[in-house]
C-alpha cells in the first residue's frame, strides 16, 4: 500500500510523533495567551527544555526524569519573563524576543559537553497484541508515552477552560484585567502561573525533540518549532482542539515534505521546506480578513500590561 514510495500508515504514525513538540508548546502558549499575556519566547523556552531535559536524562539515565528536568528548566526561564513583564511591567513583545535569544545562547553554552552523546531510550507504551493490528496498530498503538500524554493535555486544557472555575477566571483575566481586578481576582498571580505552565509545556516539547525525535543534542535543535507553535495558536483561534488539528497539519506537512524529498519527488526541496510557513501565512490572512479581531476570538487584553493602581 505505497503511493510514490510513501506508506500512508507510516506517514500518519510519524506525523503524530513529529507534531508532539509543537503541539505541547502551542497548548502551553494558548493558556498563556488566554490569560492575556503574549510570550514570544516559546522558541527560547523550548530549546532550554531540550538541553535541560537532555542533561538530566543523560546524568540520571531516566528519560522520565529527563522530561521533568526539561519542563522545570523551561519553566525557570519563563519565570524570568514573568518577573520582567508582570512585576516590572516590561514590554511583552520585546521581552519575549529577548527570551528567545537568551534561551538559544544559554542552551548552546550548557550543551557544550553533550554533543554527540546518545540519550537513554524512551520506550514505547506496551499495548501487547493491539500493536500488531494491521494499519491501526502502526498508527495508534506504537508510540512512546509522550504522544498520548500530549493529547491528554489538550483534552485537559479544553475541559479546564470550558468547564472549571479556574478556567473561567483565567479567561476573564485575559478578557479584561481591569474588570477581573475590580471583582477581586489576583491578575498578576494568575498570569504568572499561566506563564509558568506555558514554559513547562514548551520545555516538554523541547525535551521531546532532544530525547525522542532527533535524539541527540545539537545547537539550535528546535529550528523554528517555537515560532510554528506561536502561529498554531492563532491558526487555532485560541481553541484547544484546533491546536491538535493545527499541530497535525504542520507536523504532517513537515513529515510529508521529508518523505517526498526521500522519495525523490520532482519538486525543488526549497519549496517543500517552505510549505509549512507559506500555509501559516495563508491561513492567517484568510482568518484576519473576516470581521476583525473579535471574529478571531483573540483574548481582548492580549499583550496589555496590567497595573493595579488604575
Amino acid at each position: 500500500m505505497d503511493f510514490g514510495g510513501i506508506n500512508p500508515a507510516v506517514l500518519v504514525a510519524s506525523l503524530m510523533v513529529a507534531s508532539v513538540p509543537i503541539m505541547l508548546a502551542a497548548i502551553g502558549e494558548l493558556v498563556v495567551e488566554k490569560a492575556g499575556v503574549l510570550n514570544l519566547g516559546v522558541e527560547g523556552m523550548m530549546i532550554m527544555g531540550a538541553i535541560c531535559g537532555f542533561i538530566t536524562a543523560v546524568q540520571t539515565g531516566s528519560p522520565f526524569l529527563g522530561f521533568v528536568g526539561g519542563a522545570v528548566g523551561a519553566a525557570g526561564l519563563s519565570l524570568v519573563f514573568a518577573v520582567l513583564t508582570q512585576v516590572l511591567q516590561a514590554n511583552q513583545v520585546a521581552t519575549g524576543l529577548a527570551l528567545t535569544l537568551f534561551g538559544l545562547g544559554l542552551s548552546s553554552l550548557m550543551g557544550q559537553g553533550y554533543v554527540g552523546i546518545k540519550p537513554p531510550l524512551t520506550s514505547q507504551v506496551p499495548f501487547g497484541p493491539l500493536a500488531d493490528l494491521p494499519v491501526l496498530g502502526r498508527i495508534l498503538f506504537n508510540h512512546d508515552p509522550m504522544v498520548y500524554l500530549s493529547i491528554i493535555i489538550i483534552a485537559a486544557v479544553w475541559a479546564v477552560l470550558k468547564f472549571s472555575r479556574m478556567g473561567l477566571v483565567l479567561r476573564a483575566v485575559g478578557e479584561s484585567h481591569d474588570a477581573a481586578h475590580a471583582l477581586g481576582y489576583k491578575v498578576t498571580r494568575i498570569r504568572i502561573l499561566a506563564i509558568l505552565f506555558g514554559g513547562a509545556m514548551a520545555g516538554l516539547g523541547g525535551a521531546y525533540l532532544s530525547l525522542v525525535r532527533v535524539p541527540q543534542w545539537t545547537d539550535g535543535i528546535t529550528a523554528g518549532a517555537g515560532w510554528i507553535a506561536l502561529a498554531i495558536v492563532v491558526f487555532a483561534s485560541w481553541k484547544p482542539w484546533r491546536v491538535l488539528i493545527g499541530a497535525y497539519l504542520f507536523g504532517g506537512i513537515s513529515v510529508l515534505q521529508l518523505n517526498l524529498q526521500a522519495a525523490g519527488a520532482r519538486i525543488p526541496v526549497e519549496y517543500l521546506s517552505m510549505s509549512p510557513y507559506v500555509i501559516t501565512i495563508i491561513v492567517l490572512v484568510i482568518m484576519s480578513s473576516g470581521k476583525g479581531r473579535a471574529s478571531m476570538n483573540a483574548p481582548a487584553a492580549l499583550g496589555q500590561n496590567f497595573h493595579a493602581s488604575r
Partner: protein
Amino acid sequence: MTTELLRIDGVTKAYPGVVANSDVSFAISKGEIHALLGENGAGKSTLVKMIYGLVKPDSGSMALHGQPYAPARPSAARNSGVAMVFQHFSLFEALNVAENVALGMENPPPMRTLAEKISAVSTEYGLPLDPTRRVGDLSAGERQRVEIVRCLLQDPKLLIMDEPTSVLTPQEVDILFQTLRQLSAEGTAILYISHKLEEIRALCDEATILRRGKVVGTCTPRDVSARDMAEMMVGAVLTPPARSARKDWGDAHAALEVTGLSAASPIPFGTSLKDITFSVQRGEVLGIAGVAGNGQDELLLALSGELRSAPEMVKCFGSPIGDTPPNARRALGFVAAPEDRLGHAAAPDMSLVENAFLSGAVRKTLTRNGFIDWSKTKRWAEEVVAQYDVRTPGTWVAARALSGGNLQKFLIGRELSQAPEVVIINQPTWGVDAAAAAFIRQEILDRAQDGAAVVVISQDLDDLLEVSDRFAALNEGRLTPARPTEGLTVDEIGLMMGGAHGMEVAHHG
C-alpha cells in the same frame, strides 16, 4: 427600620498628592436608601472602594451589624453581605451572562443551576435576562442588569450602586428605581452614588454630601430643593449658561448636511450607522441623545473623517466631503472631540504641547516648511490651559498625568479655540465638575454665536437641554428626526431614545 447596618467612623485615605477622604463618617440603617452625593473627584469612589475591600483606609474604622468590619479583599466584603454594581469595568464582553455572573460570586453553583437561578431572580425583580447571551451583544441597560442580578444572587445586606443611571434612558431609570424600592422594602440597604439631584430626591431616604473628600452636610433629600443640594455639593452658587438670540446667517446650504449616512462599525461589538439624515445651520446647536453604544462613537468617526463614507453622504456648505480624511476636513473648519480621552482624543504619554499640535496643526498652522513650530505650539497650548482653567503644573506634562476632568477641559479647549466652522463633540462634560461643565456649555454656545455649526452628542440630558436648539436621538444606529428642544418633555425624549429597550416585560402591577 432603625437598626443600624453600616457605620463609617472617621475614615481617611490619602494618595500621593491628594487626600481622597478626610475624616468621613456616616451610618446606614437596614432597608435605607442612602445617597452619597458629590462631584467627580469628591472622594465618593474611594469611599465605596474601601467599603468593598478594594482599598484599605489609612485610618478610621467601619462597623457592620455593630461588629468591626475591615474587608481585606472584595471576596471578604461579599461574604459579609456587601455587593457592588460598578459604573464600568466589571463585565467581560466575550463571556456570556451566566459566566459573568459566576465570576462575581464566591461559590457559584454549576452552570445549569446558575442559569435557572438567573432567569428566576431576574424575572422576580423585573429585570428579564437571557443567561446564554454574550454580554458584548447586550445594551447598556441590559449589561447593568447583569451586574445587579449578580449582586442579588448573593442575597446582599448592602448594595452599593455607583452612578447606575448614567447609561439608562428615563424609562429604564424608572424600572431600576422600582427594583431598588422593592429591595429596600425587603430590608436591603442601598448606598446610592450619584450627582444627579432629581434622582436622589425621587429615590433616597437620606443623603451624605461630600466635597473634596470631606463630609460637608447631610440632609433628607425629599425636604431639600435640588438647588440647595447642588450648592452644598459645589460650594458655590451656580448660574445656568446665558444664551442670546440666534442670528440668521442666510446661507444657501447648511454648514453640515448628512444624508442617508450608513456605515459599518469599525469597532468590535460596535453599532453600525443606518440611514442617518440631519443638517445643521451656522449658529445652530444640534443635540444628539442616546444611551451609550447606540452609534455615538461611530457617528463621531464618520463626521470627523476617521470613518469614510460615500462622498454625497456628508456635505459641508453643499460640497460633498464624505470620502475625505480628517485633515482635509480640519482645513474646511471641522473640529471633533471624541468621548474616549486617553487613546482617542489624546495620546496618553505625550505632553500637552504635543497633543495640542496633533489636532491643531492644520487650523493653527503650527508647521513652517514642514517642520513643527514648537514655540508657537507651546504658546497656543498655554493659552488653552489658561483660558479653560486646566489645573496642571505646566504644558510639558504627559496627558496621562492630568485628572480626567482637567484633561477633558484641555481637550475641549483645544478644539474650540481653533476658530471652527463645524464642531462635533461627544460627551462634552463627561467627568468634569459642575462649574467646569457650566463653563464648557457656555463656550459651546459662544462658538455657535460666532457662527459655528455645532453637533453635541451626549448621554447627559442636562448637557443637551441647556445648549441645543434642536434635539434628536440615536437608537441602535438610527437617528430620529430632529425636533426643537423647546417644549420637549422628558417622557418624549425617553421615547425618542428607544423607550425601555425591549424591557416592557418588567414590573406588572
